[in-house]
């Protein structure tokens, strides 16, 4: 009894395997036959995927930067030039009395330059700056609650002796606006390029469909199910999508790695997403996109030729 069931299972599995193999063979045969059109289809899908992938990578990094900056929210008050140390101390006391301020630290211009130098790494350009330091004295204000930064900043700005006030929130706001803008542009580009890619895929696969129109007609006539008819074409579409996705990942991955290494040398303070953090979102979005375009294209191509 048990052995009978297992032979039945083995036979079924073997049949599914045989059928799957023949579907894949069909798909790869037409991949070779319509070489030029297939290359065109794969290239257009790849271009669309490059935009998707680039948007994902840039968005990821902007998000990272925004997060880091948000964690460092601090109000910095730059003092007017030419204040005496007594006057500066007076401003410091006044700022310390503002509600919501926890602690105020005076940072002299010399110290500010040193800190900047440390942050930027060893660069020859700083040697010249030591004599003509462009930085003003400043007060670094720690807040009891980072969210009160805009309110505290506006009160501090009104203190006599304060020239200008900045807080990290401005940068965060700008980063968020930039990310949003970028997403919008990327979405529009993606929609446009995906439509173009879809049209090319549909036309490529339609060539195969037309070449095999007679087979499709007979299949339907003798009672093949619509999915049986669709599979080989669907696999062909998925092949194209996957090939384009792999190409796009290779291109984007290379560009990103090279670009990241360069940026880390010139701007080491930028909190960039490392290869390990970037790999999953990139692979996920690009592969997903490739498969979707390939599948949708092939199903659209065969739709008109399926009567039932």
């Amino acid at each position, binding site marked *: 009894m048990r052995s009978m069931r297992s032979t039945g299972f083995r*036979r079924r599995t073997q*049949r599914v395997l*045989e*059928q799957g193999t023949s579907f894949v063979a069909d798909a790869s045969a037409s991949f070779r036959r319509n070489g030029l059109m297939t290359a065109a289809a794969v290239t257009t899908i790849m271009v669309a995927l490059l935009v998707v992938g680039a948007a994902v990578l840039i968005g990821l990094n902007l998000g990272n930067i925004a997060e880091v900056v948000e964690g460092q929210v601090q109000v910095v008050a730059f003092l007017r030039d030419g204040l005496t140390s007594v006057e500066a101390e007076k401003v410091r006391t006044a700022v310390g009395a503002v509600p919501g301020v926890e602690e105020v630290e005076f940072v002299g211009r010399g110290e500010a330059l040193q800190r900047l130098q440390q942050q930027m790494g060893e660069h020859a350009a700083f040697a010249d700056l030591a004599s003509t330091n462009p930085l003003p004295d400043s007060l670094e204000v720690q807040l009891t609650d980072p969210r009160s930064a805009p309110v505290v900043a506006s009160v501090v700005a009104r203190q006599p002796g304060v020239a200008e006030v900045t807080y990290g929130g401005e940068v965060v706001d700008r980063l968020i606006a930039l990310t949003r803008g970028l997403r919008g542009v990327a979405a529009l580009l993606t929609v446009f390029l995906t439509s173009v890619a879809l049209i090319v895929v549909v036309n490529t696969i339609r060539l195969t469909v037309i070449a095999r129109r*007679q*087979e499709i*007609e*007979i*299949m*339907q*006539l*003798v*009672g*093949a*199910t*619509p999915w*049986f008819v669709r599979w080989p074409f669907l696999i062909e579409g998925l092949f194209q999508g996957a090939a384009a996705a792999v190409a796009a990942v290779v291109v984007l991955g290379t560009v990103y790695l090279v670009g990241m290494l360069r940026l880390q040398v010139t701007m080491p303070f930028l909190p960039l997403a490392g290869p390990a953090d970037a790999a999953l979102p990139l692979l996920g979005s690009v592969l997903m996109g490739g498969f979707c375009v390939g599948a949708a294209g092939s199903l659209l191509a065969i739709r008109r030729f399926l*009567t*039932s």
Partner: protein
Amino acid sequence: MVQFQDVTKGYPNGVLALRRVSLRVDPGEFVFVVGPTGTGKSTLLKLLYREESPTEGRVFVAGRDVSALPHRAIPELRRGLGVVFQDFKLLPSRTVFENIAFALRVIGAPPQEIRSRVIRALDLVGLAHRPDAMPGHLSGGEQQRISIARAIVNDPPLLLADEPTGNLDPNSSWEIMQVLSRINLRGTTVIMTTHNKMIVDILRRRVVQLAAGRVVRDQSRGLYAVDA
């Protein structure tokens, strides 16, 4: 086996191919559907294998109302009947054997049964000695016999033939009629549309005559036309 109840079929271009046709075919019958071109003979068959559905009325195949059949049930319906056409509809790049095996493969028949079933079907149409020939190297009559073998390889109880001798010379036409008669003798119901007066008059089977989409005559052991 087959029943038409008050069936009207209009096409989107306004042509009424069938008008209020009622017809009943019992299991095991052999029926000729005759009439000039454009009188709805092909439409009648298309309603049976659900290439078309009726505008009004109902169509039954083996007791099942196929006019209301959902799309997903159409493959099942077609596995229960065979269809033969004037232009054979063979795949030119595949052998005789492959053409027939194709019909079994695409409906998921067990691979170990395919060989014996194809040989049996070829035997029935008298082509068991040419399984490896390419269809293009065979005569029209032989090609039509391959297409009949493909239609019956699944042992359907109903065989539909749309002008099967339309492209053939008289000798080949007789071969085809012999094959169809043999299949009918095994119990398969056969419905065949034709223009071929000689065949109808010699075989003397049931004749359904259509004119402008209506059944104008339904006669057992009939002739192609009734002389006035």
